[in-house]
């Protein structure tokens, strides 16, 4: 009951923190799509490069988030941005790489070889093949990677408050330091709801981006000729 009163009394602040949170994750994952998808496509050309890139991306994922935020401080201090928004965005960007690169790579390499052969045999140049056949077919799997990245990073961004980036983590960290369960619960609840909402929203986007021909159930009619 106390928590509910707290929430109702602090709605503007919660809204503000949510916006900060969404801004960090949104900008970072947006940039991660711009880097991860091209990288994922590029490494389909070379198995060795793919292994190396996926290995590095997986390594980044294993760095504890608090440590990664900490690492940003000395590096970005060089340009006077050691704490705050920029290091948070960069950290989230790095964490987003693995799901996006890996899903893009998997989606493109899993395109039916017969389609690639048909496209090649009909006279599509490699880029035409990519844009007209491979990418449209890969979209659902790439978007699934983006969803994973967003959901994971909504959680991770809650830590970004420790380097002064704000976000919903502010309630949690203050709740801990002040042993104020109202703030703690408010922050945790808001982060969870945001993650669930974002996932559903992106599912809808994924559905919209999937070409209609792929959404259909296969062989709806088996009429012989």
């Amino acid at each position: 009951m106390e928590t509910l009163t707290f929430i109702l009394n602090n709605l503007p602040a919660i809204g503000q923190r949510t916006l900060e949170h969404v801004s960090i994750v949104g900008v970072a994952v947006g940039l991660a799509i711009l880097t991860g998808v091209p990288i994922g496509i590029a490494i389909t050309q070379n198995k060795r490069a793919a292994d190396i890139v996926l290995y590095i991306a997986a390594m980044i994922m294993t760095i504890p988030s608090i440590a990664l935020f900490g690492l940003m401080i000395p590096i970005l201090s060089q340009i006077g941005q050691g704490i705050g928004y920029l290091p948070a965005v960069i950290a989230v960007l790095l964490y987003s790489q693995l799901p996006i690169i890996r899903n893009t790579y998997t989606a493109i390499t899993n395109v039916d070889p017969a389609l690639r052969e048909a496209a090649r045999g009909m006279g599509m140049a490699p880029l035409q093949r990519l844009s007209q056949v491979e990418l449209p077919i890969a979209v659902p799997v790439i978007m699934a990677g983006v969803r994973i990245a967003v959901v994971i990073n909504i959680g991770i961004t809650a830590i970004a408050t420790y380097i002064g980036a704000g976000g919903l983590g502010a309630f949690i960290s203050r709740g801990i330091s002040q042993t104020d369960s109202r703030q703690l619960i408010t922050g945790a609840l808001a982060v969870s709801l945001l993650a669930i909402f974002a996932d559903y929203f992106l599912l809808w986007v994924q559905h919209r981006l999937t070409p209609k021909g792929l959404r259909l159930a296969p062989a709806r009619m088996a009429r012989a000729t």
Partner: protein
Amino acid sequence: MIKLDNVTKAFETQAGAALAADRVSFEVAAGEICVLLGPSGCGKTTTLKMVNRLVQPTSGKIYINGKDTDAYDPVELRRTIGYVIQQIGLFPNMTVEENICVVPKLLGWDMNKARTRAAELLSTINLEPAIFLKRYPKELSGGQQQRVGVARALAADPPVLLMDEPFGAIDPINREVIQDEFLKIHRRLKKTVMFVSHDIDEAVKMADKVAIFRSGKLEQFDSPDNILAHPINEFIADFVGTDRTLKRLRLVKVESAAHAGAPRVAAEDRLERATSLMNEHGQEFIVMVDAAGRPQGYLGLDICRGQEGTAAEFGTRLPATVGLDEDLRTAVSMMFMFDVPWLTCVDENGLYAGVVTQRGITRLLGDTYRDAPKRAA
């Protein structure tokens, strides 16, 4: 139209270089269907793919319409050659219309022209444009998909069509139907077709020329009838099968074996006339026709002997008739089915056109062996 000149393709394998095609030379004339045949791994698909440069020959030249294919950019070259594969490979993200329009679009056609063309092609392959243009590949049956695959290959009206076991994944009943449809389309469009198959029956049915491969080498290149009648070695003979003469039945029309001069009687003719005609032509039977010339029945010599009356009184119903443009396989099959040594032939209007006998068929098929006994060794 398509000329292969000493074409070789070597692949590097762990066991050293392997030849997928070994100094292959042959030529497909304009408007002909050439079937590349052989067991798997014999180099037939590699040979096909060298024509549109999906596989680059190690040495040798391939000419299309007299022009060296090496002179083209490979991507440009492929847009001028229709390509159909066994797995069909329709793009699932595109509608039937978009699939058919792929090459016209690559060639920069006006979109309205491409769409009109797509509708036209769908009618050609017996799919109603109003229903199918906006469908997606997943909404089609396998047979329909492969029809669209053929339409897509024909979209930009290429003079040359390459088909890699195009009907291999379709069930046998539909395969026959699609083969017939394709032959019908081919008779109209007269494309030069190179067609890979591993099925001798399909080859016999479709081909003007058959090229049989074994381990990268072209073993025999000839008309289907010559391949069946005169296989040049043991391998070919085995490959085409011990029943190869039976397979030739499919290649010959009833017309060539029919005895067009076989006599007939009218229903009201007297038996004496029937008997004398049979004796005159050395036949044991005679077909009876109505006033319009349609076969009505027949009389056997044994029935007429010593009897008085008209043909109509003693005539027996005909078990079946066969069209002149049917193949001998159909005729023989009917003979077996009705247990008769001869059949009445009819022309396209259903009028009497002679008879075809088992003896006549045997003699016709045997001719080629008598003419060239040495070649059949």
